[in-house]
């Protein structure tokens, strides 16, 4: 299996985004964390070199300089590029990484299930700047106040009315929920059909009844906006429903998560590596009570452990992405990568805090921020328990409870 070490394309992405993370993301990370603000200027700048809000739809040519082979049977590189790139961006700041890539959560179902017209509409809604001069972003609204892990229990409904659907319900914790120019919202079209009745709809901001709600104050990834979104009898043309027939239901949504989980895992790896590097840097040349820090097993064995965990997490993420790019099933592998990387990020950041002692309590200390950021990886895109449930089901076919 190609571990991407020797590929000039993946290395190029790594180097470019790594430099961007260090030079442009890291210096503004604390500010956006403290202010809980989106890095709009940086997002605009990033579009210039291919980190566009529609990158999932448009491919990565601008980033890599290469076209994907159009032959659908040939291996793709999208997952691996995203995995390599996300680790670098999250190394800079996980919140900013999500601000840069959050629209991808919405672009991904459009890319998978959308018709040519729907893709065009989606692109059109994201083109240009908004009234504040900001680039436009998208939101994927699936979770609801009482439905997070169990997405089959959605209560947002879509009722047919002539050539329109009327959507009603509230969505919770939606990334870009206040600012989005376009939403992909999931609603139940046919309660009797259960999961199969759930469909995604493309809805433009400003559509009557679409009301962005309260913005959340969060523990971490505070440069990414999270908000409630209310749909109060929002009329959406039937043309804007994703998928048709048996296509486009919740099972496709789940497949979508299989492709994004390795990427999310890579972000967790990025945070862990950031904290590890910070610690290693402090250890080099540092002393305590006259002895070099690097001579202490107490410290160095923890760094060795962190290095092992980070490397293992990265390899799991790479494997899952490789499988996705090679059109092979990766359900369990994607979950393994995500669960393992989430644990690694939490463990490494927690231990780094402890080893740094009082210093890390300073407001704005990067390791303290990474400690807060890391927790999200065990929650969104399927909690740690849900990943283990997927892996377990894969082993025996039974969902343990």
């Amino acid at each position, binding site marked *: 299996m190609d571990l991407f070490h020797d590929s000039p394309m993946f290395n190029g992405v790594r180097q470019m985004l790594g430099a961007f993370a260090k030079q442009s993301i890291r210096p503004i990370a604390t500010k956006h964390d403290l202010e809980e603000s989106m890095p709009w200027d940086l997002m605009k700048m990033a579009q210039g070199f291919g980190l566009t809000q529609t990158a999932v739809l448009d491919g990565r040519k601008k980033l890599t300089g290469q076209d994907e082979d159009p032959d659908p049977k040939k291996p793709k590189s999208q997952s691996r590029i995203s995995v390599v790139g996300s680790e670098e961006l999250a190394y800079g700041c996980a919140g900013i990484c999500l601000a840069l890539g959050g629209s991808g959560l919405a672009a991904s179902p459009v890319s998978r299930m959308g018709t040519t017209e729907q893709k065009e509409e989606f692109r059109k809604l994201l083109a240009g700047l908004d009234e504040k001069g900001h680039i436009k972003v998208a939101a994927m609204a699936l979770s609801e106040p009482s439905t997070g892990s169990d997405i089959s229990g959605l209560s947002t409904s879509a009722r047919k009315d002539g050539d329109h659907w009327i959507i009603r319900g509230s969505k919770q914790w939606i990334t870009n929920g206040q600012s989005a120019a376009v939403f992909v919202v999931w609603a139940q079209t046919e309660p009797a059909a259960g999961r199969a009745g759930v469909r995604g709809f493309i809805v433009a901001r400003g559509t009557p009844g679409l009301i962005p709600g309260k913005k959340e104050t969060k523990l971490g990834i505070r440069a990414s906006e999270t908000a409630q979104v209310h749909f109060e009898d929002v009329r959406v043309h039937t043309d804007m429903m994703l998928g048709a027939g048996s296509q486009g239901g919740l099972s496709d949504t789940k497949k979508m998560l299989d492709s994004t989980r390795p990427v999310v895992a890579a972000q967790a790896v990025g945070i862990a590596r950031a904290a590890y590097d910070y610690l290693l840097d402090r250890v080099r040349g540092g002393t305590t009570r006259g002895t070099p820090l690097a001579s202490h097993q107490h410290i160095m064995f923890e760094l060795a452990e962190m290095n092992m965990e980070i490397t293992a997490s990265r390899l799991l993420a790479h494997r899952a992405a490789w499988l996705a790019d090679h059109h092979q099933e990766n359900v369990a592998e994607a979950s393994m990568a995500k669960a393992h990387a989430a644990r690694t990020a939490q463990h490494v950041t927690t231990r780094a805090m402890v080893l740094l*002692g009082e210093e890390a309590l300073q407001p704005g200390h990067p390791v303290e921020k990474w400690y807060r950021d890391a927790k999200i990886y065990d929650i969104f895109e399927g909690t740690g328990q849900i990943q283990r449930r997927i892996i377990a089901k894969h082993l025996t076919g039974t969902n343990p409870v």
Partner: protein
Amino acid sequence: MRFSLDDEQGLVVQTIKRFSDRDLRGWAADADRAGAPPDKLTAMGGELGFFIDAVPAEHDGMLEGAYAHATRALRGFELGRGCAGLAALLETNVEPALAVGRWGSPAAKQALFGSLASGGLATFIFDSRAALDVVPEGDGVRVTGSLGPAPALGAASHVVLATRDLLLLVDASALTREAITPSGWRAAKWGTARVDARVAADFVIARDADAVRMVLAWSHVSLAARAAGVATASMEYAAQYATERVQFGQAIGTFESLIRLRDDAQTGAHAARLVALHAAWALDAGLPDAFDFASRARVLANDVVARATIDAVQIFGGYGFVNDYPVEKLMRDARPFEALHGDERFNRVLASKE
């Protein structure tokens, strides 16, 4: 062996538990957002005997006879259940007052107790990495370097500083201070400071490694008890939430993996509380092992509070990550427990090699 509380302890637990459940929990979220305690804290804390409970009666305090660390640990646990940041302020004067009361010169007593009796705050800071410069100067010492981050340092009138085998009483006027608001214990009036001060002989309150160890032990026990309280609170919230939240047609608290998360955290919190209480009892009894027990109590409680608060956020899922619910604050509040006085495991490793 008896594990039951005596009458006075029972009364303290009952009173502080009520204060903690009703007042501290009620204030916690606002104090966290504001990065400051409510004005009422001083008055209500004072009524309950905080701030001057370790100041001798003859100096207008409330301490008659020996200080009871076991009672303090019992109360610390309840305070931790309420709000770790406010608890830090309520407990901050104890180490300085006990140290000065035990070893201080009349001048040191007058300076510190005068301030505490009129509502002042003091804080205890341990230079765990021996990073301060300390040189003899006249009949005292000159101490130079940086202090903190430490709770109450942003507002204290005095610092009891432990560095190497010295305990020093430093007047805040000798510090160049900055008030800061870290993300844990946000209401605790944190500060950092530069110190470059001559500490006169009268204010060198001890030149004795055992004295330093003893003050640290008092602090360890109190911190450990409070950490056990935070861990307990995190699981009180999580267990309650887990009975209410339904996914996949059942209360999430009935999924075996979550039962285990909760149960392990509760086991840890229970153990941490008992080990802290035991160390406190050993301090009160003057046992030679008490310092070691206190340090071990810290190590255990630090692990427990770190794990429990992270797992409480996990049990709350997305709601755990936002500040409408109490647990993300607890995850932030776990951090100072592990950071204050340095990494206690490392301190132990280094001490074992000496």
